[in-house]
């Protein structure tokens, strides 16, 4: 049987990659993709724990997470489109009307 | 109905607030002035029974009212007065209507807001003297901040914004320390905010020392004691006359009152431990204030610095910790409230006519405005402690008290009194007997033209100054009434301080 640690390690790596993606990339779409990576790493955790604990909660939680992730993407892309219509950018550094 | 059944203190405290609310619905400036006057006079009249039916044989709190207020935090609405606070309440209501009268013509813009500020201020000040619950006390204490800030900042002189902000920040800094102290003592004193209960506790010396310092700084800023006094000259100079009177008459007394009510009875060990340093600070304040007053040419600034000096007498008297000293101190609080208020009123009266406070611009008062000059003379004499005036009684008692503790103090005090005489006489001489040949201010034509516009005091002003004169002479000739009222309370205060655990102090 594959040790639980392996799964958690994989999820941690994906989590860190996702976080770095959000913090490093300036392309808004890629930032959103990195957010998906984070959520997926969470799901690996949930499903793995669920399996190794013989408890269904984790799986169910993962289903909800996937749904929410879809919602987030829909809203975020909607906002992105509104933004792009106004000013043709999707570079986060160009968002400088608001200082700070 | 017998006096016991009436909630005198609540009425006295909240009547001004009620008046302020009523004022909201009026627009006519004349009506607003008359209503404000009526409210303050009524308040004064109601406060008289507090003094007349006061039982002078006991130090216990009187006219006590106690209701549950915020049970979750064990906070009560708890009011009551002893001999010292009763005097202060009386002084506050007295100053209240005088302030309204003084501002009758002096305030012409935003009269409604001004009168509301004055009335709210009066409510808060009376509340401070009556509150027997620490949180209630703090609420009133802080409530004074907003109206005073506005009084200085909106109706003040040239540098009003600077002075208002300075006043606000200094006072706020003090309040924060006070709040910390209050919460600390709540837990140390058995989770209660009731001041009489907290006085009965005995706290460890370390705790006393920390709390004493926190409270002391908070109160010293209000007094103001050297070196926390720098906000005072600015605030005085830029405040309108009524603001100066409130500041000098009542607000400064808050600090010394706090020392009497909280610091000394609650932290007796620390009081004895810190008494000598505070006396030295007081002496520094007396001399320093007097020196600076001597150097001023602005009349208001001169009186402001004289306040620093006079309040130094008060703190010194209090921390002598003997009967003469404390009685003298408390009496001086009252006296200073009368005398300095009267002097500020005098400044205001002449300023309304000449629009200058520069001493070098005067010199004709005795000739042109003789009645004014007489009043100014009386108050000047009272300020320097001339026998037969109220100042003399207070200062002589403090001198006696000081002699009992250490004769060296007396020497410094005498020097302070001499300086005091010097600056007061300088001021009076400058105003009343200077040369007649001083040029008129630019743009006001010849000297004769200029002087013809300057009239002697009118009946309204006569009333203001007359009332102050009554008290100056009354206390000067027959102080026993006032001393009797505070007597039992002062005795009790001395017992409380002497309950200090002297061995623990000696060990340090």
């Amino acid at each position, binding site marked *: 049987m594959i040790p639980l640690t392996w799964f958690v390690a994989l999820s941690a790596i994906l989590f860190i990659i996702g976080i770095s993606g959000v913090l490093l990339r300036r392309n*808004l779409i890629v930032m959103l993709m990195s957010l998906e990576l984070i959520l997926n790493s969470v799901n690996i955790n949930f499903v793995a724990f669920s399996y190794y604990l013989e408890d269904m909660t984790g799986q169910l939680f993962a289903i909800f997470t996937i749904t929410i992730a879809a919602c987030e993407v829909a809203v975020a892309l909607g906002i992105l489109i509104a933004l792009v219509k106004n000013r043709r950018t999707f570079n986060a550094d160009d968002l400088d009307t608001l200082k700070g | 109905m017998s006096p016991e059944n009436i909630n005198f203190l609540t009425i006295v405290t909240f009547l001004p607030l009620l008046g302020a609310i009523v004022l909201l619905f009026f627009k006519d400036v004349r009506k607003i002035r008359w209503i404000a006057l009526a409210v303050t006079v009524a308040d004064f009249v109601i406060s008289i029974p507090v003094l007349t039916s006061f039982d002078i044989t006991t130090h216990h709190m009187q006219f006590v009212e106690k209701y549950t207020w915020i049970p979750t935090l064990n906070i009560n609405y708890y009011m009551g007065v002893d001999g010292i606070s009763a005097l202060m309440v009386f002084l506050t209501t007295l100053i209240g209507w005088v302030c309204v009268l003084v501002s009758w013509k002096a305030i012409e813009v935003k009269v409604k807001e001004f009168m509301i500020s004055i009335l709210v201020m009066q409510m808060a000040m009376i509340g401070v003297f009556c509150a027997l619950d620490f949180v209630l006390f703090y609420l009133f204490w802080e409530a004074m901040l907003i109206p005073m800030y506005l009084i200085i900042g909106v109706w003040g002189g040239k540098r*009003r914004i600077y002075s208002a902000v300075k006043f606000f920040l200094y006072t706020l800094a003090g309040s924060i320390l006070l709040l910390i102290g209050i919460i600390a003592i709540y837990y140390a004193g058995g989770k209660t905010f009731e001041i009489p209960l907290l006085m009965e506790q005995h706290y460890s010396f370390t705790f006393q020392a920390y709390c004493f310092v926190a409270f002391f700084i908070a109160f010293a800023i209000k007094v103001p004691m050297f070196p926390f006094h720098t906000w005072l000259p600015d605030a005085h100079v830029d405040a309108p006359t009524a603001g100066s009177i409130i500041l000098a008459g009542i607000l400064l007394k808050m600090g010394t009152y706090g020392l009497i009510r909280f610091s000394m009875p609650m932290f007796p060990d620390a009081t004895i431990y810190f008494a000598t340093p505070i006396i030295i600070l007081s002496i520094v304040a007396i001399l320093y204030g007097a020196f600076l007053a001597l150097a001023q040419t602005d009349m208001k600034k001169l009186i402001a610095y004289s306040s620093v000096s006079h309040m130094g007498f008060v703190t010194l008297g209090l921390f002598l910790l003997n009967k003469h000293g404390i009685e003298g101190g408390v009496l001086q609080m009252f006296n200073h409230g009368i005398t300095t208020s009267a002097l500020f009123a005098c400044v205001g009266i002449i300023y309304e006519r000449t629009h200058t406070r520069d001493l070098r611009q005067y010199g004709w008062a005795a000739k042109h405005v003789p009645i004014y000059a007489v009043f100014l003379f009386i108050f000047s004499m009272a300020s320097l402690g001339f026998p037969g005036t109220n100042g003399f009684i207070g200062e002589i008692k403090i001198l006696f008290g000081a002699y009992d503790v250490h004769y060296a103090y007396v020497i410094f005090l005498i020097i302070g009194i001499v300086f005091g005489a010097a600056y007061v006489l300088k001021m009076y001489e400058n105003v009343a007997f200077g040369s007649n040949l001083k040029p008129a201010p630019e743009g006001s034509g010849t000297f004769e033209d200029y002087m013809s516009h300057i009239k002697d005091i009118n009946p309204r002003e006569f009333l203001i100054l007359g009332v102050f004169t009554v008290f100056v002479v009354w206390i000067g000739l027959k102080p026993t009434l006032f001393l009797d009222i505070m007597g039992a309370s002062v005795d009790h205060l001395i017992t409380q301080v002497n309950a200090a655990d002297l061995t623990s102090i000696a060990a340090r």
Partner: protein
Amino acid sequence: MQELVFSIADVTAVVPEIIVGVSACLLLMVDLFVKEERKEIVGWLAILAIIFAGVGTVCLASVEARTVMAGMYVVDLYSALFKMTLYIGAIFTILLSLNYMKSEGVEYRGEYYALILFALTGMMCISSGADLLTIYLGIELMALPIYVLVGYIKKSPTSNEAAMKYVILGAFSSGILLYGVSLIYGYTGTTNLAGIAAGITASGTDSPVLTFGVLLLTVGLCFKVAGFPFHMWAPDAYEGAPTSITAFMAVGAKAAAFAGAVRIFMAALEPAFADWQAILIIVAVGSMFYGNITAITQTNIKRMLAYSSIGHAGYALLGLIAGTADGAASIIFYMFVYTFMNLGAFGVIILLRKCTGKGDMIDDYRGLAKNNRLVAVVMLIIMFSLAGIPPTAGFMGKFYIFMALIDQGMITLAVVSIVSTAIAAFFYIRIVLLMYMKEPEGEFDLVKSYSVYYVLAICIMAVIVLGVYPGAFMHLAKAAAIIM
């Protein structure tokens, strides 16, 4: 065969949520039949729905705390008090919006009110959630509509931009929070709050898995309450959003986030107190000082209020740090008071908005008191309340928190936070100073909108009444915190 595990009693317990959620759906349909210039009707209907929900909540609050929906949801006094705060926040937000959204010329004004109701449903789920899943879903249901609402003025680049930044950082924080949840789930084998507490007690608190999970969860929640250093979304989102939505975020979203945080920390992570307390102390002290000091240099009032809200989040966190029932009660009280203060402040900003370009800049308040005495007095009282000067409610809120803190012997922390209060007073009185002691530069032509006037009147009354007589509500808050 599993049978349905919920009964009619379960359904009645969530009636307020059902009312709000279903009304949101209904409003979407009603909106189709309302003419463009009369969309305000939708807003009034939304208010009506919230009032019904409020009545429902009051009726339910009279019964004892009970867990329903298979342990997913809890109905108790604690959630009822927070829901009342949220209702007030939502109703006032709508009242502030009625005129404002129209004058800004915004499209889809009917959907706007539906989205507010959706967000409100989410907030209610957070405050009543008894399972990390419910709380997480509540957070998302609150956040998604607010992302959209922040960007609702589509023509305005600042609004777009604010929404974009908010959505990315919001989703980012949700991700971090979820990762923490997953680790805690792995450690305890459940997402139920009570179960987690039991699990932690059983397995001990020294495992790095738990510590890391708690750390990430705390960070995620601190993002949601905008605590330093996880505050960076707040100033931009506050400044760019429509002012009414800024108010909604400052009031509703913050209160809901605190409702969730208090429940998670006090009910589920209580055994791991030491782990999160240390983090929260850093966040709280950082928030108070960073928020209050940065606020001093701001020139835009919405941005200043954003930094001030960071500072206020710091104060409220102190209640959690105390970790007692009094601490939790002080947060309930603080959030209630904070709602009125902030709504009042944003109401004044909206009133000024009509003068073209005015209202957003602090300098716009110069001399306001000269001809608009009433508005100036309102702003004065609110500013002093935010600064925590008695006899306003702001003081009582802070006072209660400090009491709870000192009760636990954390005197240094209390002193530090009181000092930061003094710093905060500085920028609040600056506005008073501008209003009262400077001369106006031009005429003020204020918006005439009775709905805004009502909001301001109620806010002022509440600020004063709660400042002078906080006893009753404090008592309720204490009772709620004890039975939680």
